[in-house]
């Protein structure tokens, strides 16, 4: 047995699915569409003997092509108008969760016995995540097809959502995590896009495409709630708060610095000093945190404009996102050693600006961006609270709204006449720039790529993700 062979290879999986499906479509008098599909999926991922593998998935749809109706034919400017409705059910499974015992093979180095390390606890009650989708849509085109687009309104309700959660250590799960069917997720959304040919002359064309989406989601029916900082901040594997958006953001209300330059915060409506709290584990999380928004954008989409002048084409693509919040950069955690002094080794990724603007005297109270580093902190509760406030304090929550340039490209097509002489069908020169950054933003950094300099990984990611790309190309068509 070669250790590592199983663990690292992906080709050993044999996930089996059986699906039966049928589709039908029927159009009556060009006006009315009926569509339907049904599939019955089974999988071995839940174990062959279980009841859970069966999931009938189906959808039903109807369309009404209004422009085919007599009354609509009289409306001159209208080229196409169709109303669609659909309803469906579908399911999702999680490959990492299974209702049986499985483990990874390995060898005991001392006894040389093969053994299996359990990776998941069986969960016989695990079932498909079921999603119910309602959709109403309109497809339209008017003014000789110069304006066209679609509008969709949907509602998606997911039931038995598969979530990975922290499990009480008393249940003895591997890494104290497990996948469960827990809670419901309600999604409502509106999407529309408009494509318009604003100018359509022989020599000059201007096309614009605007897309907009909005989504509102809410996690419901969560009966277990964790009351720890993670449930409010990173949310990794913890029971999230119910009746909140999936990506809710909570923060500690920051209240300036005290007379020795350590942060103050609002706890239960009262201004509290970090040093007032002798034991942070006694804090009640609901009184410490307040909900300040969500991390996913409420409104987002893109706007693309193409200008074509003779053989030149200029294209400009913009992305926009609004209505969400982001956590800014923060200093390294655990800056103080147990003896209470600053650890120089922690400073390797420290932001120089923060150090420069740290609290030095009471005159800095209003402007300081960092607590007083010239302090002796021996109580680890104080360190924890300061680390929490510096990262998840309201002073570090920023409006993440932005408009960014997705791409700009300029191309030139060599005229056909010139090409025919050298026997080429098509020749195009393109120069393009991508990821040019934000043109509108509210945070002092790029909200999509927060620097997070206190972690080496975050800092590296910041550098690599934030680079604009430029390219030039030549496209040759031979035949």
């Amino acid at each position: 047995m070669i250790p590592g062979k199983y663990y690292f290879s992906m080709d050993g999986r044999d996930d089996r699915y059986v699906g039966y499906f049928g589709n039908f479509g029927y159009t009556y008098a060009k006006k009315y569409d009926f569509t339907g599909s049904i599939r019955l999926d089974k999988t071995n991922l839940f174990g062959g003997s279980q009841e859970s593998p069966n999931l009938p998935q189906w959808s039903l749809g109807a369309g009404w092509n209004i422009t085919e109706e007599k009354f609509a034919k009289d409306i001159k400017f209208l080229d196409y108008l169709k109303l669609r409705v659909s309803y469906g059910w579908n399911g999702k499974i999680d490959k990492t969760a299974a209702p049986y015992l499985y483990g990874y093979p390995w060898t005991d180095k001392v006894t040389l016995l093969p053994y299996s390390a359990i990776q998941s606890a069986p969960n016989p009650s695990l079932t498909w995540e079921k999603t119910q989708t309602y959709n109403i849509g309109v497809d339209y085109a008017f003014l000789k097809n110069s304006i066209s687009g679609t509008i969709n309104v949907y509602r998606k309700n997911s039931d038995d959502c598969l979530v990975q959660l922290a499990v009480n250590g008393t249940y003895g799960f591997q890494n104290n995590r497990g996948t469960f069917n827990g809670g419901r997720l309600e999604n409502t959304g509106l999407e529309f896009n408009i494509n318009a040919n604003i100018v359509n002359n022989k020599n000059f064309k201007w096309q614009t495409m605007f897309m907009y989406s909005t989504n509102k989601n809410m996690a419901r029916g969560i009966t277990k709630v964790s009351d720890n900082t993670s449930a409010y901040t990173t949310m990794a594997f913890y029971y999230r708060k119910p009746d909140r958006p999936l990506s809710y953001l909570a923060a500690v209300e920051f209240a300036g610095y005290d007379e020795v330059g350590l942060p103050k915060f609002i706890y239960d409506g009262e201004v509290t000093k970090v040093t007032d709290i002798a034991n942070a584990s006694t804090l009640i999380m609901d009184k410490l945190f307040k909900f300040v928004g969500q991390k996913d954008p409420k409104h987002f989409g893109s706007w693309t404009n193409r200008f074509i002048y003779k053989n030149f084409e200029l294209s400009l693509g913009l992305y926009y996102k609004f209505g969400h919040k982001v956590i800014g950069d923060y200093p390294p955690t655990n800056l103080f050693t147990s003896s209470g002094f600053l650890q120089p080794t922690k400073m390797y990724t420290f932001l120089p600006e923060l150090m420069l603007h740290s609290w030095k005297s009471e005159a800095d109270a209003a402007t300081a961006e960092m607590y007083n580093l010239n302090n002796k902190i021996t109580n680890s509760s104080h360190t924890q609270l300061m680390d929490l406030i510096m990262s998840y304090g309201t002073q570090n929550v920023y409006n993440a709204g932005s408009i960014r340039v997705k791409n700009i490209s300029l191309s030139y097509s060599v005229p056909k006449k010139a090409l025919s002489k050298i026997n080429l069908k098509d020749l195009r020169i393109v120069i393009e720039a991508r990821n040019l950054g934000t043109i509108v933003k509210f945070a002092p950094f790029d909200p999509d790529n927060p620097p997070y300099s206190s972690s080496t990984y975050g800092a590296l990611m910041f550098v690599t993700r934030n680079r604009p790309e430029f390219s030039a190309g030549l496209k040759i068509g031979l035949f």
Partner: protein
Amino acid sequence: MKKILYFIAIFFITGILASCEKEFLNSFPRGQVIAKTTADFRKLLDFVDNSRYSYSLSLTTGYVDVMTDDCYMDSTKWNSYTTTREHIKNLYAYKNSVFTYDSPSFTNETNWNNQYYTISLCSNILSEITIATDNVEKQKQLIGEARVHRAYAYLILINTFAVHYNEATAATDKGVPIINNPTALPPLDRKSVKEVYEFIISELESALPDLPDDVDQYKHRPTKLSVYAILARTYLYMGNYTKALENANSALQIRNYLYDYNTIYTGTVDYYNNLIGISRMNDEEMILWKTFAKSVVYTTASTHYILDTMTFNQLYPDFIKNPDGTTVNYDLRRTLKFNGIASNRKMTATSTFQFNFYNQRYKTDSNKGGTTCHNPVATPEMYLTRAECNARAGNLQAALDDVNAICSKRYKTGSFTNLTPANFQNNKDLVLDRVLLERRRELYGKDMRLYDLKRLNLPFTHKLGSLTISVPANDPRLIWPIFPKYIEMNSELEQNERETSGVKYYDKNGVEVPITD
């Protein structure tokens, strides 16, 4: 007509497909071992290796004994216990607030979690193994093994996290949750101490008939021997000395090997080299292989098993100090188990004595990439359990025979004279004290001292720098508190109260020092 034929054809094809489907789906996903046959469950129950994963069936506790007189910390050492080990520091000082460190990543307390991991895994194995019918005899043996691992985990839990077994109150004393179906996430209400002990005994008894008698080279696999040994310990802790004696006897009938330290330690080369060669595969004293908790003490158990000079010399007094500073040890455990003596056999300059035995003893295993961290159930404990039961029953000669058996193997040849009841004026209590002293010496560094302090109602003191911490017998703070985050997630899990305590602190002049927490 044609149409009908088509329909019939389609109908049949679908039928054929549907009948294949069952076969197709019954194959389990590949790339992992799915437990179906006894061979698969064998592999699950051989999961004791700690070199790769953070959990295994072999992991037990760590730092339980910091709360005893077997550990001494100076203030530097004490201060080094921070963050996820901050509770060790507070437990050592017998503070009221123990889990003072809180961090999103600090989500587990190893002593509790390791035992419940074993319990959960064994419970899952027990509920799934019904499908492994390919070899009924093997299946029964594996069921027995899972029950033994699980019972051992409960025995550790009940002694660490609950008041000691007391026949009069055990039915109402808070024990620990008994979880047989972890995947259903049952409520975590604490069963009574009595219920937990009854569960341990019934599990061990039902496992007994299906297990082989003695260990082979795979010493992590439970046997009849390990069932007797664990039962002996269980009954001893319950104060049922008749049953404890019976089981210790049964264990010793199967295996009674004791190493003669004179052959391990020749005294001519440094002790370190002489220990190389013993592995968990061939340790003749071993009854059931277990280790300390991985995340607490991975490489070495010696980081906190430290004695100050005075306590060390009181505990192992059999040595002669030469004028040149070298010592001649009559009790070879002084040298073998502690680092107080350097490789040149001279006393080192350290004022403390660090327990170094098991780490060095299993050097062979660590050279192979295995763990150096061992805390097995072993034969000396059975001798001492038998001796204690005999002493309590008034069989003084029998009790001393077992002490003699151990000492004659642990002392330098010729330096130990066999003890007789006459040496103790035929006094039962004095003999018992001698047995218990030998127990403490021999079982030092196995995370079992706290349980003895609890069951024997012993008050004790240990020092923190110049501060003396004095713990009265049966103080509520002798019980480990349950990790608050577990209670936070399941409020039905009740905490061990430690607010009222008789712990006192004295400065070097013997003046009581008030401690706020």
